[in-house]
């Protein structure tokens, strides 16, 4: 809680502040939820998010009533903000899965402080991402035609189309992430049930905890399940954005049609995902006084991952341009020339600044350990990554093969309303999570305490 004294004394090797006791960890994390006192921070954020969410509903209603013509999409730019937003949100989600699954398998125990809310962020981001493929359809009420189901028409989806792969990739991702997140939360739900004073909360947590009693057998099954789910999630970190990138690479549009999109997209996804983790973690830990649990070391580790993935993205930019030149293909060359000097040049150079320029500051430890700077640079990266997708999608479509059909996309107010609205949806979902569920994994953080380390060591 904010009014609790903050003592952040920690040794080099410690992940969390050394003042914590087992009980203290539980008290603090559970206390965020189990209190009648809702901090003004939460109310403010939720209200802002809710306002944006209403805007989202308004623009979606308008969309359903009038059609996708309310957006700026046109011939030849048939995909605009909707697909850009989709790829951006899906990418953001990747950090959560990476933290919870890959870092679990790699035994990176520092992740324990941030994996829960990072995973929640994944779910919220996937929920936002999922809106756009539906909204962007000309006839969204027929979305189920993309799903193979037995029907009297005798038609199946076209399994050659990357959009069908998307359907599978995204739904799989959503289901596995949800299961992993929920399974990981079961012991904490038991804790919440046990500590709840309110009868309704007791029942709700009780049902969600699925009878968790913390017996050795429970723990054994639980750990196996978590490992299995982590194993299932791990390939998803790579596959989902690979398949999303197929939406572009399978097509023949100059600027889309290239083989290195999968690693490029995955790196970009993790890059933007970690940026979002930082954007969420920095204010929340300050507002809830969790600096002892989500320490500067966590922020620094996230920043290091951003640096690594960001450099991959930078490499991709360079190689993409090099390959366009090296291919000798007039269309590719022209596409990249237009990208750098054409009508969207401003966006391009701005995204290069956001994604590569600002990244260079992360080389400095001083920068990595200054939360406010990290927060700002993460927002810059999020904007840059959105622009990157916009550039790839809109910039490539606007000027492709036949110059007579070239045309520029101009976003309408509804485009912006839908984008900002989806951010509202994200904020609302995320802050509901913060208010109702333990945002940090209680039992996993407890394993980080010195008291727990003995057992860890003996097991190892």
């Amino acid at each position: 809680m904010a009014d609790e004294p903050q003592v952040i004394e920690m040794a080099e090797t410690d992940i969390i502040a050394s003042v914590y006791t087992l009980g203290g960890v539980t008290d603090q994390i559970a206390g965020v939820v189990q209190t009648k006192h809702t901090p003004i921070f939460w109310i403010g954020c939720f209200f802002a998010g809710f306002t944006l969410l209403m805007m989202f509903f308004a623009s979606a209603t308008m969309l359903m009533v009038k059609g996708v013509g309310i957006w700026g999409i046109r011939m030849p730019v048939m995909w605009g903000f909707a697909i850009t937003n989709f790829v951006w949100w899906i990418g953001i989600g990747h950090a959560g899965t990476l933290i919870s699954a890959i870092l679990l398998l790699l035994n990176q125990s520092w992740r324990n402080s941030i994996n829960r809310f990072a995973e929640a962020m994944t779910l919220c981001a996937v929920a936002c991402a999922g809106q756009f493929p539906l909204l962007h359809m000309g006839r969204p009420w027929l979305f189920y035609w993309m799903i193979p189901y037995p029907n009297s028409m005798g038609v199946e989806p076209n399994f050659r189309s990357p959009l069908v792969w998307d359907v599978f990739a995204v739904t799989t991702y959503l289901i596995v992430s949800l299961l992993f997140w929920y399974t990981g939360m079961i012991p904490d739900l038991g804790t919440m049930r046990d500590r709840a004073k309110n009868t309704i909360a007791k029942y709700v947590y009780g049902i969600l905890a699925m009878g968790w009693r913390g017996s050795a057998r429970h723990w054994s099954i639980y750990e196996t399940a978590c490992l299995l789910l982590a194993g299932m999630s791990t390939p998803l970190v790579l596959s989902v954005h690979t398949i999303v990138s197929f939406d572009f690479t399978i097509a023949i549009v100059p600027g889309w049609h290239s083989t290195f999109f999968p690693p490029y997209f995955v790196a970009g996804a993790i890059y933007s995902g970690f940026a979002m983790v930082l954007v969420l973690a920095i204010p929340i830990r300050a507002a809830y006084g969790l600096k002892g649990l989500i320490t500067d070391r966590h922020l620094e580790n996230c920043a290091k991952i951003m640096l690594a993935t960001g450099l991959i993205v930078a490499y991709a930019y360079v190689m993409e341009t090099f390959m366009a030149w090296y291919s000798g293909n007039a269309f590719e060359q022209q596409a990249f020339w237009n990208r750098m000097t054409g009508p969207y040049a401003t966006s391009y150079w701005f995204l290069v600044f956001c994604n590569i320029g600002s990244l260079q500051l992360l080389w400095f430890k001083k920068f990595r350990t200054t939360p406010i700077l990290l927060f700002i640079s993460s927002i810059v990266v999020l904007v840059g990554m959105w622009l990157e997708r916009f550039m790839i999608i809109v910039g490539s479509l606007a000027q492709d093969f036949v110059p007579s059909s070239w045309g520029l996309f101009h976003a309408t107010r509804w485009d912006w309303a839908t984008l900002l609205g989806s951010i509202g949806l994200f904020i609302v979902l995320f802050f509901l999570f913060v208010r109702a569920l333990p945002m940090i994994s209680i039992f996993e953080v407890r394993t980080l305490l010195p008291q727990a380390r003995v057992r860890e060591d003996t097991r190892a």
Partner: protein
Amino acid sequence: MSDSNTKPDVAAARARLEGASGREYWHSLEDLAAAPEFRDMLEREFPRQAIGWSDDEDSSQGRRNFLKLMGASLALAGLGACTKQPTEYIMPYAQQPENLIPGRPMFFATAMTIDGVAQGVVAESHEGRPTKIEGNPQHPASLGAASGFLQASVLQLYDPDRSQTTTFEGKTRSWSDFYGTLRGALGQQSVKHGAGIHILTETTTSPSVADQIRQIKVKYPAAKWHSWDPAGAHSARAGGVQAFGQPVNTYYDLAGASVIVSLDADFLSLGPAALRYARQFSAQRRVRGTDTAMNRLYVAEPMPTATGSKADHRLPLRATDIQEFAWALATALGAANGPQSGVNAEVFKWVGAIARDLKSHHGASLVIAGDHQSPIVHVLAHAMNAALGNAGKTVSYTDPIEANPMDQVASLEDLVKDLDAGTVDVLLVLGGNPAFNAPVEIGMRDRLQKAKLRVHLSQYRDETSNVCQWHLPEAHYLETWGDARAFDGTVTIQQPLIEPLYGGRSVLQVLNMLTDQPLTSPLDLVKGYWTGQHKGEDFETWWRRAVHDGVVPNSALPTKNFTVRSGALGTPAVPIPRGDALEVLFRPDPAIYDGRFANNGWLQELPKPITKLTWDNAAIMSPATATRLGVMRQADLNYGAEGSPMVRLTYQGRTLRAPVWIQPGHADGAVTLHLGYGRTMAGRVGTGMGFNPYGLRTSNALWQDIGLEAKKTSGTYLFATTQNQHLLDTRRHIYREADLAEYLKNPAAAHAGAETPPPGLTLYPGYKYEGYAWGMAIDLSACMGCGACVVACQAENNIAVVGKDQVRRGRSMQWLRVDTYYSGSPQNPRLYNQPVPCMQCEDAPCELVCPVQATTHSAEGLNDMVYNRCVGTRYCSNNCPYKVRRFNFYLYSDFETPSLKLARNPDVTVRSRGVMEKCTYCVQKISAAKIDSEKENRKVRDGEILTACQASCPTQAIVFGDINDPNSRVAKMKRERLNYSMLADLNTKPRTTYLASLLNPNPEIEA
């Protein structure tokens, strides 16, 4: 009328009725009904046998009547009580008429007139509704092709904004009310011999209208007949008089012309014989196999036109410089004695070479003067053609085809004089819109109101109707009988396909009200006239033949030999030093002509040739002129989103604010204004679109004059254009061309540098097309970019009109587009036109990416689009390299307006919101032909299926057929060395291929 002395005193009768009430009223009514004059009038109004089944024995006649009546009853079922419907017309559909098979269209020959001159058409009728206009292959002006104007006329028929009632000062009245008023007014005229009667018509060539007016003149010898068409052939008429001392009709035979010089004549796309000329012209440019002869075209013109885009050498000259050019050329040819050099070297630079080329083709060359050039240019052209021995060979002269050839400006001025004198008692404005389009200094709008009884017959309640007391709805040409002459005098009987939707009547019927003949049907009027004209035996057979064919046999006027009078030329005017003054040009709009088509959505949305501008006109000028005026705005991709600068144009003290359009290839120092825009009462589509150049146009300068001032002014304007990027990128090999000489040396010259993957370069075995394999070939040498195919496609395939705002946002729906590219200097670039329908790729990128299989490949190689299945992800469009797919961003199709439903082709789905659509190669026509052929147990014959674009194309640039049949025209074209696939290196294997364009430049002239 049985007794011409007793006039039906309707006014008195009405007064009697009005004064009566109750029992007295009924008594009066009975009295009235019994009165002989009333019966008399009744007889004229509703002649018992005027239309009906009097000629039921004549099966074709009866059937035709039936069709149009039935069409009307179907049509009117949805329209409610728009017109009085005599019960005798209605026939139950239960009795199927002979030869009418529901679902199968029928075709009727008729004719549409523009500026009075007929162009023969064949109208397609579905269960009594005309839905599509095709050219009439037997008609000399059409030869089977149909221009955009003709194609779009069918939309005009169903236009819900057409005037639907007769009105007097805005209040609804009946035709008989009007008739009563008119007869009342005429009653006072018989003493004056009709001195107060003025009839103002458009130009007319109709023999029966001429006959009617002759009859009226017999009764009212002092009545005056005036004519006005704002975009008529005023200069050609005056030039003829100046050259030959009498009005003549001139037409050309391009089939015999090897060298053609156009003096600002857009003869390929404008004018009553343009379709014929285009056909003949392109036939002389078709290089196939060993037939490598090509004609050569020189064009001197200010504003790039469709004709200019086909020129082997195009010389951008101000319109007023053309005269100097014509003098120099005539002098070089020995036909005149003018200066051989001048201040403006541009004018003279090619004269010698062109003259030598012309001379070496004695009798096989042609000089064409543009309708918008001054009379002296026409005289010079006549003189040059005479000197070149072309008269009688490539140039034919006949007596005028117009019923009343007159100086129309003088006739308007005559009318104005009488209006001012207050001697105009009855003014009948039959068609036309003089209040809007008469020369501005005449002030027709205000002056018209000086006539005592003003009557306007028109399809729309327009600017002129607004100042007339009576407005009468005019019947559309598909609704009424009539006749008209074509460019060479050939008469077409214009037959209706449907009863007037809104009770409209024709000019003939209104004129009939002025005569003492009983009111009869338009059929009787026309047929009555021709009964008198026909000399031979068996009128009925002759008549039926003429109506059926759409051409009256041997009715073309005999050609005559005229010689240019000595002294006709006079001496060349000294070129006026012009300083900084600009030239103003008034030209009919390529899409809405003189404004008459302003309410036609298909034409408004038709991208105009060269500019690709829709829904607007503009102050069109060259880049250099724009730079001088400080209004240069580099054309870029953002044209639709960023405003174009405005200029204030001042000419003769009158001003007009207009947005600037920069046109490479436009003559420097000139501003072109297209007429017809700026309508204030056109209807929902046309009102308020564009700017009105009629406000600057005076009778002294109908077409061009020096003395325009232009100044940049505040504000910007958003244009809606369908193409923003015009520069030809030769690295893409999208448009390929070669010079004839190059091609003869190396047949692959056009393809130099382009990559084509070898056949079979694929991982998967190709699909074997066993039956038909449909394909298309487009000859770029022939295409001039007129846009007729675009309108034809829109009509055939129920393509929605989206409006200016949506076009501006890049959402026009036309399945077929004609791309225009430039290369070379902005002063005089080469112009290229390329029609782009769906390529129907064998390995179609769109099919692969559709998630729901809404676009799939047929066994005949068509890339089918299944509207029902489409969920609208638009991925197919992104992946289409040719960008030929169109998406319904909104609910563009009009599902509400009843009359527009009648215009739809029943064989084509009307697409709803959220669905992708695209060219299908007119799959409905393919299916119909296949069904026919299967019934007859044969294969579809080559040429049996004409896609809509192909059928309409004046130059026969588009050929469609079965490429599995090695003898089909399309297969032969695809074997030509000029054949290429657009973006061949993508290996999409398009079924639509192009023949590279060939030019035949004069080796003497450096390009």
